[in-house]
C-alpha cells in the first residue's frame, strides 16, 4: 500500500492543473481574510467571530475546489486512458481506489489546515496590529468551525472523488459537484420546505449540512448539529465513493 500511496502522490503532484487549483484554493481565502483583517481590523465592531467567519466562509470555496481536484484525479485517468496502465500495474483495483482516495483526501485536508492556520495566525496578527484584540477564547465555536472546515474539505474531496468514480467524466463530475450544492440543493430544499412546511429542511440537504460544519454562529435552527452534519455529509460522501468503487471494480477498465 505504501508503494501505491507514493505512486498516487506522484500522479497528483505532477499535473499542473492540480497546482493551479491548489494555489487558488489557498490564495483565495487567505487574500480575502488577510485583507479583511488589515482593512477592517481598525473598525470598532470588528470581532474575533468576524475574522473566523471570513476565514472559514472563504475556505468553503476552497473545499469545493478541492472536490474538483479530487474528482479530476480519477476522471482524468479515464479521460486519458491512464487507468489501464494503472490497473495493469495493480490489478487489485480496490487497492488503487483506496490509495488514490487516501492521497487526495489527505492532501486537501493538509491544504485546508495550512489555510486555516495561516489565515488565523497572520489574520489575527494583522487585526491586532490594527488595534483589535482577537482571541479564540472569545468565541467558543471558533475552533470547532475551523476544524469543521478542514473536515469539510476532506469530505468534499471524498464526495468529488466518489462522483468522479461514478461518472468517469471530468465535465460531468465537476458540473454535478458545482450544481448540486450551489443550485440543486437550494431548489430542492425550498421545494421540500413548501411541501412539508418545515423551513429548516434545507439544512438537511447533504452539502448544506456539510457546510454547517464550517459555520461560526450558533445554530439553534432545528437543523443538524456540527457533529451530526459531519457524520451525515461524511456518510453521503462515503456512499458516493462506495458506489463509484463498486462500478469501477465491476466494469471493464
Amino acid at each position, binding site marked *: 500500500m505504501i508503494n501505491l500511496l507514493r505512486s498516487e502522490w506522484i500522479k497528483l503532484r505532477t499535473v499542473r492543473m492540480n497546482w493551479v487549483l491548489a494555489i487558488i484554493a489557498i490564495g483565495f481565502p487567505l487574500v480575502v481574510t488577510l485583507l479583511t483583517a488589515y482593512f477592517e481590523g481598525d473598525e470598532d465592531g470588528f470581532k474575533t467571530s468576524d475574522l473566523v467567519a471570513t476565514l472559514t466562509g472563504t475556505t468553503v470555496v476552497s473545499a469545493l475546489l478541492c472536490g474538483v481536484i479530487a474528482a479530476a484525479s480519477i476522471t*482524468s485517468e479515464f479521460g486519458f486512458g491512464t487507468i489501464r496502465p494503472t490497473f495493469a500495474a495493480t490489478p487489485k483495483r480496490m487497492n488503487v481506489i483506496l490509495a488514490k482516495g487516501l492521497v487526495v483526501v489527505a492532501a486537501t485536508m493538509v491544504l485546508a489546515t495550512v489555510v486555516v492556520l495561516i489565515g488565523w495566525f497572520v489574520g489575527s496578527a494583522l487585526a491586532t496590529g490594527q488595534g483589535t484584540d482577537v482571541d479564540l477564547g472569545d468565541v467558543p465555536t471558533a475552533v470547532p468551525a475551523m476544524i469543521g472546515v478542514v473536515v469539510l474539505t476532506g469530505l468534499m474531496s471524498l464526495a468529488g472523488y466518489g462522483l468522479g468514480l461514478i461518472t468517469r467524466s471530468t465535465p460531468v463530475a465537476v458540473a454535478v459537484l458545482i450544481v448540486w450544492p450551489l443550485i440543486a440543493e437550494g431548489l430542492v430544499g425550498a421545494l421540500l420546505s413548501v411541501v412539508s412546511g418545515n423551513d429548516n429542511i434545507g439544512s438537511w440537504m447533504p452539502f448544506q449540512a456539510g457546510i454547517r460544519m464550517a459555520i461560526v454562529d450558533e445554530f439553534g435552527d432545528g437543523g443538524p448539529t456540527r457533529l451530526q452534519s459531519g457524520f451525515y455529509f461524511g456518510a453521503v460522501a462515503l456512499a458516493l465513493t462506495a458506489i463509484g468503487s463498486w462500478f469501477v471494480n465491476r*466494469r471493464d477498465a
Partner: protein
Amino acid sequence: MISVGDLTKRFGSKVAVDHLAFVVRPGVVTGFLGPNGSGKSTTMRCMLALDRPESGFALFDGTPYHDLKRPLHEVGALLDAGYVHPGRSARNHLRWLAASNGIARSRIDEVVEMVGLTSVAGAKLRSYSLGMRQRLGLAGVLLGDPHTIILDEPANGLDPEGIRWIRDVLTHLARQGRTVLVSSHQLSEMALMAEDLVVIGQGRLIEQSTVSAFVDRYADRWVRVKSPTAEALVGSVTAAGGEVTTVASNTLDIRGLDCVAVGEMAAQQQLVLHELSAQTGSLEDAFLKATAGAQEYTSVQLGSQTGSTP
C-alpha cells in the same frame, strides 16, 4: 509461458472473443495476428484483467494476472502508447508506474536511456510524437525487467529506424528466454521477427503454429522459370497438368509442378534456363487466405466500384 483457455468476452450481443485458446512459449517472439475487429486487443485486455471475460482464463506461468503480486516484474504490457497524461513528463510518467511496483528510481534512467529518450525525458508528453510515445511505452514495459512481454501494435507510428529497433529489441528479449507476444498489422515485420503465430478471426482461433508452417499451409507455391525460349516449355508443362502464367516474355510462373519436374522437362527439350526456382507466397498472402472468411470489415476494390460519374 502464457496459457489462454476458453476465453470468451461479449459486448452486449456482440461476441468479441469466442472460446479462444492458445499457448505462447518462451524463447521466441509470437505474433498475434487477426483482421481489424478480430478481438486481438480485447483478448490482451482480458489477459491483463482489464476487461472482465464471461469465461475462460489467461495464466502467466500458471498464475492469473490478477493474482500477480508485483505485475510489472512479471509481465510488461503496452496496449496503447496514447495512455499517458499529456501534462506529465515522460520521467514522471515512469516514476508513478515504477513507484506502484516498488521499482527503484535508478531503473527509470536506465530504461529511458535504453529507448533513446534521455534528452527529452523531462519534456511534457503532449509534445511527444506517436513514435516517441511508443518508445516511452516500451520503457514502461521494460521497467520491471519482466519475463513476459505483451505488446499491441508496438510499431505504430515508428519510423523505419524505430521499426528495426523494436524488432531487434524484441528478438533480443526473446533470445534471453522471455515470452514475447506481439500483435501487429505489419506482416512483413512479423515475418522477420516472429517464429510462432497465433491467428484469430471474429474472436476465434484460426491457427496456431510456427510462421513457416503457417506459410506452408496457406500460402501459394509455384515454380519460376526464366529462359530465352520459355514459350517452348508451355506445351509440355500444360500436358503434364501444370498451370502456366506468363510473367514476361522470357519468364513463366508454373503451378502444379515442382522444380524437379519442370527442370527435367527443360532438359528433355534441351532448353537453356537462366532461372529455375521455387517460389512461396508471403506471410501476408497466407494471412489473407487464412482469414478470408473471418474479415470483420471488408473494403470494396476501387476499380470494381459501380455508379455513374458526372
